[in-house]
């Protein structure tokens, strides 16, 4: 899917006094980005329903930010805002088991690998989300966006950073993620870990 920053240039530049987006322009942006944003949030939250809630919240905020209509980076804003909200939601959920339960149920419905594999996968998802919720939000955001397939350029647009710094940021974020994960689950060392 294309990136975020391809805002339709034919959009009417609205007066700053306007309180919301032009409807037609907003619809274009919604249709362009909605599916990908929901897919990212599903990874983060484990279920379509809260993912769509959070995505709607992000679009609702966008709708009331008419100044962004003349911003070429509206997609970046959306990815940033949606993942900020998603990480907030992940952290705010003191009862993450609800989501993990849902995620587990989804797995159960669709996999053919057998119940043990499903259980293991479910547990792994729970652990990964738990670690994402515990590291710095900016790092969790970078990891989830990169893992969802955003290019360095898209990441730079979404996070308002220089593209040349993305590689280093990824290394640091992944290191933090791995360290936190292994601290919590020391028995889950990857076989290669022993060799390094």
């Amino acid at each position, binding site marked *: 899917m294309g990136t975020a920053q391809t805002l339709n240039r034919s959009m009417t530049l609205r007066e700053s006094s306007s309180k919301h987006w032009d409807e037609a322009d907003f619809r274009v942006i919604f249709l362009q980005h909605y599916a990908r944003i929901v897919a990212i949030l599903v990874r983060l939250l484990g279920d379509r329903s809260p993912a769509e809630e959070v995505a709607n919240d992000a679009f609702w905020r966008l709708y009331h930010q008419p100044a962004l209509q003349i911003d070429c980076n509206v997609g970046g804003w959306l990815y940033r805002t949606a993942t900020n909200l998603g990480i907030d939601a992940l952290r705010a959920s*003191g009862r993450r088991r609800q989501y993990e339960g849902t995620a587990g149920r989804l797995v159960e419905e669709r996999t053919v690998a057998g119940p043990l594999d499903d259980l293991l996968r479910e547990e792994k998802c729970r652990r990964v989300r738990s670690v994402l919720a515990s590291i710095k939000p900016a790092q969790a955001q970078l990891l989830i966006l990169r893992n969802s397939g955003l290019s360095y350029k898209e990441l730079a647009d979404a996070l308002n950073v220089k593209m040349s710094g993305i590689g280093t940021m990824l290394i640091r974020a992944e290191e933090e993620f791995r360290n936190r994960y292994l601290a919590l689950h020391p028995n889950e060392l990857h076989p290669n870990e022993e060799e390094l």
Partner: protein
Amino acid sequence: MTCIDDGILRARLDGELAGTELTEVNQHLAACADCGARFERLSAETARTADLLTTLALVGNDSALNPAVAYAQFRSQFGTADEPKDSWISRLFAPRWRPAWGLAAGTVVVAILVGVSPVRTWAQRVLAMLRVQKIAVVTIDPSTLMTGREPDSRPYKLINQFMADNVVVTMDPGKPDIVPSVTKAAQLAGYPISTIGSLGAPQSIEVNGETAFQMTINRDRIEMLLEEVGRSDIRIPDSANGALIAVHIPRTVISMYGDCPARHSHAISDTQSQAEALAERKMERMASMNNTNCTYLVQAPSPTVSVPPELKMAEIAEAALQLTGMSPSEAHSFCQTVDWSSTMVVPIPRNTSSYETVSVDGVEGTLITETLSQGNRYSLLWIKNGVIHSLAGHGNSSDALTLAASLR
């Protein structure tokens, strides 16, 4: 070519290099054993992280997602008209914020509330039991706290994170009971219920269940979050670290008069889930569009807050007030004027709100008015017989006093 830094190696690994840069890096990697080894190590580490993170991709099914349908649903859900900006007052005192308000009582530490007044012991850890007996108002800059609207509303996130990580709900209020009469409400609540005589019978009355939760203050965690929002200058007192705070909120009665929006849809579950929080916010928005004729009367016995005796609430309150934009000296001065043993401190926005002390129901009350582009809103707060009353609606302060005069 000098050795390649890890960031570029990572970009090479991710296929993000092109042209001459890619050629140069490839040539160097072929010639430099050190960089080659680092590249291999980086590849292994990246693969290991990817192995964990890609697990998340296996969950969920987006095959049926139709953006056009989603857009139609979005439109029907949120409408297209301009919504009035949420009233700070309504956000604080509107009934739909009662659960959040309950949590706000817990946010105490970061935002509001009481002090220390040892009354009795509790579960051996014994704590001071605090009850709200009076109300004080502090003006703040709301743009710095809990605006909740801006995408990078960091203080809001801070509080959310703190709550999520530290709060354990020990008594879930469940869904509210809609009761047919004031008499029934009083029976359920266990205390007398006032009504606004001049408005006739309430359109609806809800009785919300008891709520209780506990939170443990993790100073390192709070300071880390403060640092994230650029307020590392705020220090959390030593006495707060590890303190267990328990909050109990008795049954609350909400009477609604006039055209009040329906408050409870299927979207509100009985758990404190993130979906619920979102649904609640959404409902709040929808409700704020069309409730100019709606008046709420909330009656809530004082929450009981249990804190360790050594916890210095005034110091915590100082930190909280600094978070709202107050200077350290202002916060310190204010905290000296408040009896933290029994006072609920209500923050109101400096620029759009005013407050005055009035006489209501035979006691002293605080009347807060907020000026918005859609008109004024008021919230009249008073405490009588240990029950906090909040009368909130659209209009001027005189409207509030007229309604309050007909209380019975």
